[in-house]
């Protein structure tokens, strides 16, 4: 059944990027990176075979003077995973609340104001939010630390910075689907029974809009990592994104490759999780497979 669900969701039209293509993406990006960085002293195919053999034995290579890539990467990856998870949580919480509210009161003055604000959230560069938050909370009010990645407090500002843009995307999707759901008869029935608006929104509508929201969050993952690169730079947060920039500018070939590889694996896993969550969020997709 689970396998059937998986294939069904994969074959369904309008599905987010196919997970298997992510895998191909890895090799293409690897090849691009290899082609660019190497090939001066050794022929390209030989280097690639060499790397593939090393990779197969679990060796990600090393950075001159800094030890094996795998050890550095593990630490950096954990830091970015924390940041991304916190940002996604913020974006979902803020996005759903805003989306439900604007969708419920569609075309009100509040909705129109929120629309411009949401467009601003996707328009402003991430470093704009980062610098403004940094200036306000780290320097002017001096509540939160400005740089570093050691404690929960260090996570707050970067997570908000990174979470604002996806929050706007989630809100947009939630709004559109709320408007659609609000017109359904079961919502009318619930209102007729005297159920309050927030109760309907969070009990009935939330269930319906959860799937498109999970889809948009999954689709936005690539941009989230792009954002993490900037966010981590603003806050000197020792994560994967900052490491990638460092690796590329220092020409640590093995490290660049490893980051690309990790990203590809992560992307495949994330798409798989998104696919699986459909069955969890909407039991109908599970039954449809039979």
């Amino acid at each position: 059944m689970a396998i059937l669900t998986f294939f069904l969701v994969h074959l369904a039209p309008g599905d987010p990027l196919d997970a298997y293509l992510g895998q191909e993406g890895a090799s293409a990006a690897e090849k691009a990176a290899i082609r660019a960085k190497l090939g001066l002293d050794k022929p390209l195919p030989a280097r690639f075979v060499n790397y593939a053999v090393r990779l197969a034995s679990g060796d990600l290579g090393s950075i001159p003077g800094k030890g094996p890539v795998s050890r550095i990467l593990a630490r950096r990856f954990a830091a970015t995973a924390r940041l991304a998870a916190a940002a996604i949580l913020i974006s979902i919480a803020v996005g759903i609340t805003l989306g439900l509210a604007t969708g419920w009161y569609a075309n009100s003055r509040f909705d129109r104001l929120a629309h411009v604000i949401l467009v601003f959230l996707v328009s402003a560069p991430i470093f704009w939010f980062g610098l403004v938050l940094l200036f306000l909370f780290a320097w002017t009010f001096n509540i939160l630390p400005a740089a570093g990645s050691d404690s929960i407090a260090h996570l707050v500002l970067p997570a908000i910075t990174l979470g604002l843009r996806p929050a706007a995307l989630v809100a947009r999707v939630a709004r559109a689907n709320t408007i659609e759901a609000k017109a359904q008869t079961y919502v009318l029935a619930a209102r007729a029974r005297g159920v309050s608006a927030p109760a309907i929104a969070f009990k009935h509508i939330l269930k319906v809009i959860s799937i498109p929201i999970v889809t948009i969050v999954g689709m936005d993952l690539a941009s989230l990592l792009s954002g993490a690169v900037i966010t981590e730079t603003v806050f000197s947060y020792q994560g994967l994104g900052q490491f990638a920039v460092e690796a590329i500018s220092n020409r640590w070939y093995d490290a660049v490759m490893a980051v690309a590889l990790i990203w590809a694996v992560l992307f495949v896993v994330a798409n798989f999780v998104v696919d699986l969550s459909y069955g969890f969020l909407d039991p109908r997709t599970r039954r449809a497979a039979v």
Partner: protein
Amino acid sequence: MRAISCFVAGNKVATMSLAFLIIVVATAVFAPCLAPYDPDAQDFTAARQAPSFSHPFGTDFQGSDVLSKIIYGARATVAVAFGVSTATVALGFLLGILAGYKGGLSETVIMRVVDVTLAFPALLLNIILVAILGAGFESLFLALTLTGWAAVARITRGLVISLANAQYVTSAHALGATGTRILLRHIVPNCASTIVIVFAMRAGATVLAAAGLNYLGLGDPQDTNSWGTMVNLAQFDIVTAWWWSLAPATAIALTVLAMNLIADAARDYLDPRSGANLAEQR
């Protein structure tokens, strides 16, 4: 022309956005007349001055006027926005038509490349490309084009496939029209409105992407007057000179905001179906 005036008249937000963008373009064109100071003039006795009447946006670490730098920086932004967006939309449109109309092997190859490009974080791809090509305006241009076309190609392909199955195309086919004629007479003209929206969207995305690269110090050379590069230089002085980084960063934010608001309004105007939720109560 009438379509534009009609579109603008009905929408206050779009009018303001369009006016703002016209101001930005005019600023870029007439920068030498508008800038109160030479953007590259250095005066170390006047470094990091707070905003005042003589320097509305303050001065930077070399004592250069931030306002003048922003006025000249508009040139880089406008150049990237128009240049790269035109190139990405043209490339993406051609490949999208090829994939959507011809199908077969070319479709498979093009769409796989599109999937791969879109699955990978654009910024990392851009950084790698810039690292390969070497920093500079040309590499920035090339990198943004190479990563930006994929989104356009995907939209175009979907559009072409749906148009190719439309009844009038089948009729034209039955009347004996050749594939080229159908493509040029029926499909391409019907893509026009979407392409306008896509162009506005790509302009915003391009300015953001360029700003991100410049912010990381990987785009334009450090001594060029561009908004992203200014933020890159200024970010560590946020405590001592917040105006120096926040002024150019806000300029980027407002420009992209205007572009996205126009894209939104154009979508509602040209394709009322997609904005159905907005239009239904209007």
